[in-house]
């Protein structure tokens, strides 16, 4: 894809997001791909910071703040309204966090996907309720410190990709703030889908993950390179791994970069590694099957 094929960034500077915020990287990239004929929704979380305060806003496109759990329901109505008014060329996108997606937002998302409306749902996964000050969500990984899991989370991360795939969603992909061009290509494909499209973007949060602000992209890349965050897309049930990792790195580098994993024992890290390797191999096998 030639550089410069995308449009301008439609988010203004001067927003009060944290330094090094991955969600903001994703938001700007999103507007470069989708362009001005886009309506964006943000639930009340970190992405709502872009939706402004007082009489100011960060968006140069039409934007709306939903409630935490119903962005997908709003999108259903917006799409129906646009259809009724004959406005077919408008993209409808939600930029929601993991809490508003896999926890409280699950019902509305599942319902909207089941009904098959044309929309794009981007989940920036910073793996906790960050805007309220780092509380665990269903997407918080095993072992991670949060204010509500001070001893480290004891449950596994909820696999929202598998759940939505079970519904037969036409397009679903994982992405990473550390592989922004891969995300942008996926978003372009999502825009073409005549139905629901979902992209789950790993979005490291320096504030919540307890690491320096400059490490956002480095840590995002370590997650992919240690197979903890495989990058793939599923188009009409057909899987493709979009970033192949030739020489996987040990998970230690990823874990040691973040204060939230301080409590993870070497044994837990080992199990994490094994799980990741098995999962990655399964994905490669699935990809092969699809090609056969």
């Amino acid at each position, binding site marked *: 894809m030639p550089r410069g094929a995308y449009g301008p960034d439609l988010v203004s500077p001067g927003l009060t997001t944290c330094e090094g915020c991955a969600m903001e990287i994703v938001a700007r990239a999103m507007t470069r791909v989708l362009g001005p004929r886009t309506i964006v929704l943000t639930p009340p979380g970190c992405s709502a910071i872009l939706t402004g305060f007082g009489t100011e806003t960060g968006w140069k496109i039409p934007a709306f703040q939903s409630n935490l759990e119903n962005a997908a329901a709003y999108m259903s*109505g*917006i799409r129906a309204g646009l259809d009724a008014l004959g406005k077919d060329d408008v993209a409808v996108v939600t930029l929601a966090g993991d809490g508003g997606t896999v926890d409280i937002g699950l019902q509305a998302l599942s319902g909207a996907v089941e009904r098959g409306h044309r929309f794009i749902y981007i989940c920036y996964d910073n793996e906790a309720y960050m805007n309220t000050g780092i509380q665990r969500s269903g997407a918080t990984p095993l072992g991670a410190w949060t204010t509500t899991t001070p001893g480290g989370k004891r449950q596994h991360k909820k696999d929202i990709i598998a759940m939505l795939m079970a519904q037969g969603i036409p397009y679903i992909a994982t992405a990473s703030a550390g592989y922004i061009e891969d995300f942008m290509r996926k978003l372009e494909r999502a825009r073409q889908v005549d139905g629901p499209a979902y992209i789950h973007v790993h979005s490291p949060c320096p504030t919540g993950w307890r690491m320096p602000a400059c490490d956002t992209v480095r840590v995002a890349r370590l997650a992919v390179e240690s197979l903890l965050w495989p990058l793939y897309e599923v188009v009409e049930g057909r899987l493709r791994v979009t970033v192949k990792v030739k020489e996987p790195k040990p998970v230690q580098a990823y874990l040691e970069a973040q204060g939230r994993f301080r409590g993870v024992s070497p044994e837990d890290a080992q199990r994490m590694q094994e799980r990741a390797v098995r999962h990655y191999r399964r994905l490669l096998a699935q990809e092969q099957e699809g090609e056969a």
Partner: protein
Amino acid sequence: MPTVKALDGNAAVAEAVRLARVQVIAAYPITPQTPIVEHLATAVESGRLPARYIPVESEHSALSAVAGASLVGARAFTATAGAGLALMHEIVGVVAGTRLPVVMAVTNRALPSPWTLQTDHSDTMAERDQGWIQLYAESAQEALDLILVGYRTGEDPRVLLPVMVALDGFFVSHTVERVEVPDPEQVDAYLPPPPTNRPLLDPDHPVTINQLTSPDIFTEIKWQHREALQRALGVLAEAGEAYGRHFGRRYAPVEPYLPDTSAAEGWPPDVAIVTMGSMAGTVRQALRDGLLGEFAAPGGRPGPARVGLVKVTCFRPFPAEALRELLAGVQAVAVVDRSAGLGSQAPLAMEVKAALYDLAAQGRRVPLVQGFVAGLGGRDFTVETLRRVVETTLGQLANARAGGSGLAAGPGPTTSWPDLKLVAAQPARP
């Protein structure tokens, strides 16, 4: 020419939605509203109603979807009842605060607990301070008419507010009546297209809607909302008046009724019964057909007591001034609420008393107000209950002391439950 059909309240609502040329419908079934979403599904499937039909997965999503459609400028509708409205509660305030002129039918159903399928007004009463216009229909005909009046009022540029049209579950929603269904051309002449001169999600004119606000501007936005709701009373009266000219049935926020004579000539009666919804229909019929029998007129005046009805069609915004003028000359007011108002007096009674407070402030005589709670959980509001209401009110009046301001308070309880059956409590063990 209108078509006359035998329709229940639910079918009448569906007809109105079709006539209003609604563009987006969000549908979730809940007793006793379910036939509405079924009729609409049939109408959409057959092409009679070219709307987008969204079979949502919960009522919370129903109102969210309807709000989404309105945000891009489409005319939208949904319907619910009881616990469904309660589930929508989080979004009810958002829709009003964001000034989206949607219309929602609510087939009144009592909120749990206890669980019931049957009617009372606890569901819509729980939403009364959210900033919607709230109308109560007495019959299937009114349910149809008020949906159309609702769109015209809510979408008026001076208002831009959502409208709830309440109809009693089963008593109105499921009772078949003679209904005049207007012609589509007639309705097109009455109802203009939905308004676009308001904040919309439109890529041609980007704006952010419903952003986080600060104490600097929150109060002023709420004030705009308050003023719009105040204006809505006058706009509603205009819309109801125009409805009369177009369709032969006139609506006003508050309407008096007397059995023998026109309310304009014979007003005020000795006792005025203030109520809403299907109970107003019961009172109206009981008075018209002389079913209550006669009561002694107050103060030893020869002849029977004169009893009249004050039907409140518009509960929000509350038509305090009109009510005050209607009740000023009345001796005693019996307010019959169909919700319990636990923890205080029942809501309609409180509104009436608040409205009448200004009479005292103006140095005018304040009538006695007796509050009644009846018809909860679908208990039928019978002629017998109504008779007890009138008896109790006249009894309170007879025993009242004349105070300095003219405010007469009887010795009985502030709120009476006239249809309460005194039964032995259930034993704790079988």
